[in-house]
């Protein structure tokens, strides 16, 4: 499946149909080549939208430790099927990815599977304990070349520890990706704090617990002159703080999940834990603000926060269930539904938020470089007119906790190319 | 009872009903050799005013006050599962109770006999009468259980395609007994009682 590919009649970033030639791992030429196939394998694009390979800043591959939920192999396959060519694997594994040894193991597993570039994320603090910095430098210098560090799952809530981490990573162009959740305000929290949480009798997760941390961290980052990345922004108030910080010139970037662009806390009224996630689903006003922020670039990237869980952790009463939803295989369709079909973002905007900017934030060389001749041949082909109905048993992920069961979503990933090699063809593993 | 019959014809008018009740009152006193330990219990809905009227007549003729009350049989029915749970009617047992008494159950129509069977079960949970007798305004036949009435206002042979409707002033503004054809388009008509 490697070698030379001629993608015929595809529409780069939704533009006019043209032919794209992939050779030696790069995009060789674009333009009409009606009769000259040059010995390439031909894929009849027939109006498929061509995007640069998607880059996910936030995924949970669960290996090592929870291979019953997902492995690097199954998760990265799910990513490729979702149109991704690179994913950042979060560090809250078991053991935690807080040493060069663990991140190199994850990186190696990713290479062996070969579906996408797996970029391990290193923990900020040892054991995610929030007290002592992990060996960030060792992880940066390892074969995994870690640049993104996050205690995701937990918040780095100690202000001094956060300050030191922000300062320390400057030495190797790293970035701290904060999971913003003030721990005392959210003890045993189950869903968004609002009218519905009071009615349902589920402890609330107030928006201010996210916003207060983001406010503190953008000020800290500006004070020490460091980059900051904010994971899974979920509230309108957080958007306001980010807009203010960027206007002041702070070097802060932010991501939003697909589910926070589409779903609201009303779904919790079913008490079905498939809708239980951290940060929780919020209100329609929050969804609207997040969409507008992604459209105007205040939020830089879509990141899936793909969080697989086995059936027994989700098929229970709400309070006992794990937090998290699948995301890799439905991310692009959800973004199309929430942003493209609503006219908020065009295809070049999709490419920017799901490939270019995430690659830049994660310092992923060779990814997010667009579709110009000379760029590495990381290409995703999407049938924008198709509608998929989500079937949890038909997913490549080992888990099936998707909130979109039975829902029809627009767009289907037809093919994915990683440096000129097809990882997905005709919507299936190549 | 819903009046869903077509062309209902009257078989008893107000005078007929009054005469029947008076006759039954005499028969009750005769059979029981006086007012004695009588208690009349009407089966809701229309058995209840009939029991009260009967008690008034028995009291006049027999020159003694006869206690009258009501006995709801809903919880003892054998056909509960065929329809959503029904509302309960009121049970009112007169202060003397039923132990050792002659209880006369009173109902408007005797048909399959199942309602009376339920009433007998309900009664046995309340105490042990010395005897139980049954007075009905109309006996329309088609018994499904070995049950018979001691006192009958009118014997009305009917077909199963017919509906018998008793009207009483307390509920319907007038006293009458009507027979009509069962409207087949109506689901769940009150056929088996």
């Amino acid at each position, binding site marked *: 499946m490697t070698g030379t590919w001629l993608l015929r009649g595809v529409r780069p970033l939704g533009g006019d149909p043209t032919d794209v030639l992939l050779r030696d791992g790069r995009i060789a030429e674009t333009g009409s080549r009606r009769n000259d196939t040059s010995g390439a394998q031909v894929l009849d694009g027939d109006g498929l939208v061509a995007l640069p390979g998607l880059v996910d800043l936030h995924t949970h591959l669960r290996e090592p430790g929870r291979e019953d939920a997902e492995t690097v192999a199954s998760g990265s396959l799910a990513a490729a099927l979702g149109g991704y060519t690179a994913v950042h694997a979060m560090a809250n594994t078991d053991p935690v990815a807080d040493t060069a040894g663990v991140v190199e193991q994850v990186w190696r597993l990713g290479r062996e599977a070969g579906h996408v570039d797996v970029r391990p994320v290193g923990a900020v603090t040892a054991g995610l304990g929030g007290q002592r910095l992990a060996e960030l430098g060792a992880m940066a210098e390892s074969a995994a070349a870690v640049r993104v560090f996050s205690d995701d799952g937990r918040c780095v809530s100690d202000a001094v520890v956060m300050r030191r981490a922000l300062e320390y990573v400057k030495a190797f162009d790293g970035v701290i990706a904060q999971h913003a959740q003030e721990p005392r305000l959210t003890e045993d929290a189950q869903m968004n704090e609002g009218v519905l949480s009071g*009615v349902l009798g589920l402890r609330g997760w107030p928006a201010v617990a996210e916003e207060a941390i983001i406010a503190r961290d953008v000020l800290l980052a500006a004070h020490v002159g460091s980059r900051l990345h904010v994971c899974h922004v979920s509230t309108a108030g957080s958007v306001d703080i980010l807009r203010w910080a960027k206007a002041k010139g702070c070097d802060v970037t932010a991501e939003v999940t697909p589910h926070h662009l589409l779903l609201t806390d009303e779904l919790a009224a079913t008490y079905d834990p498939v809708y239980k996630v951290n940060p929780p689903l919020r209100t329609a006003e929050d969804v609207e603000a997040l969409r507008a922020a992604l459209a105007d670039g205040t939020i830089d990237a879509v990141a899936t926060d793909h969080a697989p869980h086995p059936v027994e952790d989700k098929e229970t009463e709400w*309070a006992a269930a794990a937090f998290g939803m699948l995301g890799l295989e439905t991310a692009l369709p959800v973004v199309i539904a929430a942003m493209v079909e609503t006219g908020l973002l065009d295809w070049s905007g999709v490419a920017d938020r799901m490939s270019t900017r995430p690659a830049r934030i994660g310092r992923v060389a060779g990814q997010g470089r667009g579709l110009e001749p000379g760029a590495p041949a990381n290409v995703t082909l999407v049938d924008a007119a198709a509608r998929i109905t989500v079937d949890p048993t038909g997913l490549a992920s080992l888990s099936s906790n998707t909130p979109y069961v039975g829902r029809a979503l627009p767009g289907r990933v037809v093919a994915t190319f990683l440096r000129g090699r097809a990882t997905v063809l005709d919507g299936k593993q190549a | 009872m819903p009046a869903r019959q077509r062309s209902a014809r009257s078989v008893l008018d107000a005078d007929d009903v009054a005469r029947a009740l008076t006759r039954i009152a005499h028969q009750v006193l005769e059979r029981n050799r006086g007012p004695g330990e009588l208690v009349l219990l009407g089966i809701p809905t229309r058995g209840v005013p009939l029991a009260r009227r009967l008690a008034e007549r028995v009291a006049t003729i027999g020159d003694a006050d006869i206690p009258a009350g009501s006995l709801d049989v809903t919880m003892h029915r054998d056909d509960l599962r065929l329809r959503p749970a029904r*509302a309960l009617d009121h049970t009112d047992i007169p202060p003397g109770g039923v132990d050792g008494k002659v209880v006369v159950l009173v109902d408007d129509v005797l048909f399959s006999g199942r309602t009376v069977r339920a009433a007998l*079960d309900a009664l046995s*949970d309340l105490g042990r009468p010395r005897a139980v007798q049954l007075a009905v305004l109309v006996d329309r036949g088609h018994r499904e259980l070995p049950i018979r009435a001691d006192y009958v206002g009118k014997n009305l042979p009917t077909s199963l395609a017919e509906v018998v409707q008793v009207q009483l002033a307390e509920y319907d503004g007038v006293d009458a007994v009507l027979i009509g054809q069962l409207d087949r388009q109506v689901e769940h008509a009150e056929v088996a009682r």
Partner: protein
Amino acid sequence: MKHLLSAADLSRDDALAVLDTAEELAQLAERPIKKLPTLRGRTVVNLFFEDSTRTRISFEAAAKRLSADVINFSAKGSSLSKGESLKDTALTLEAMGADAVVVRHPASGAPHRLAVSGWIRGSVVNAGDGTHEHPTQALLDAYTLRRRLGSLEGRRVAVVGDVLHSRVARSNVLLLHTLGVEVTLVAPPTLLPVGIEAWPCATSLDLDAVLPKSDAVMMLRVQRERMNASYFPSAREYTRRYGLDGWRLAALPDHAVVMHPGPMNRGLEISAVAADSARSTIVEQVSNGVSVRMAVLYLLLAGEEAA
């Protein structure tokens, strides 16, 4: 109606049907044979994941008086304490053929999950789920109130205490509103849930202003431990500002009654004087509970085929 999960499941007609049926069934307590054959051959399972002798006995008595078979499944003495899941427990009960499952669970929404999951086919009755609802408690409270006051329409009831954590409060607000009662919730601001303005009731932070206008006051249980989480500074301050003591009892109109779902913290939310006064309905709430629960089981099960 197949399940009773929330007081919001009941329309006004449904609620009145329960109260009227309970009225008739209450006579059973006076009879020599306290039994009706109506649910003979049905199986009612009491599935209690939370300790509650009082409520469990009430449901057990209700089911037995209707001649149903009762199975008590309590989390303590079973494999549940070793971590058997809600789903596996439900599947076991289904295999035993439960016509109705009465569930009390510490997690809000657990009865809802049982009802919609497809694990059991019977009716689910919520006997209290976390801080969410306790619909049969609200029904017996409404029944008690109607008996004492004669009518419910237009009455004013104050519900006082830890509303935030109270499933009794939620169910009562919904049901009393359905029955035409004006409810006022009284609590310190820390114990009122966010979004309370959207509830079909009024709120007040001043108990003394509300009492003289109330036909009934319902005191909710307050846990002393809440002061460790800073909901109020001390038990003393709570009692002084929100407790029903003798002075406040006297401030009530002459006809007004005092209610409490139990168990009481005598001296914290309610004084002995108030609890033991003639206005108190606390003891009859318990016996009314059996009649009301009989009515609920009858209305849910009698019209159905056996499992």
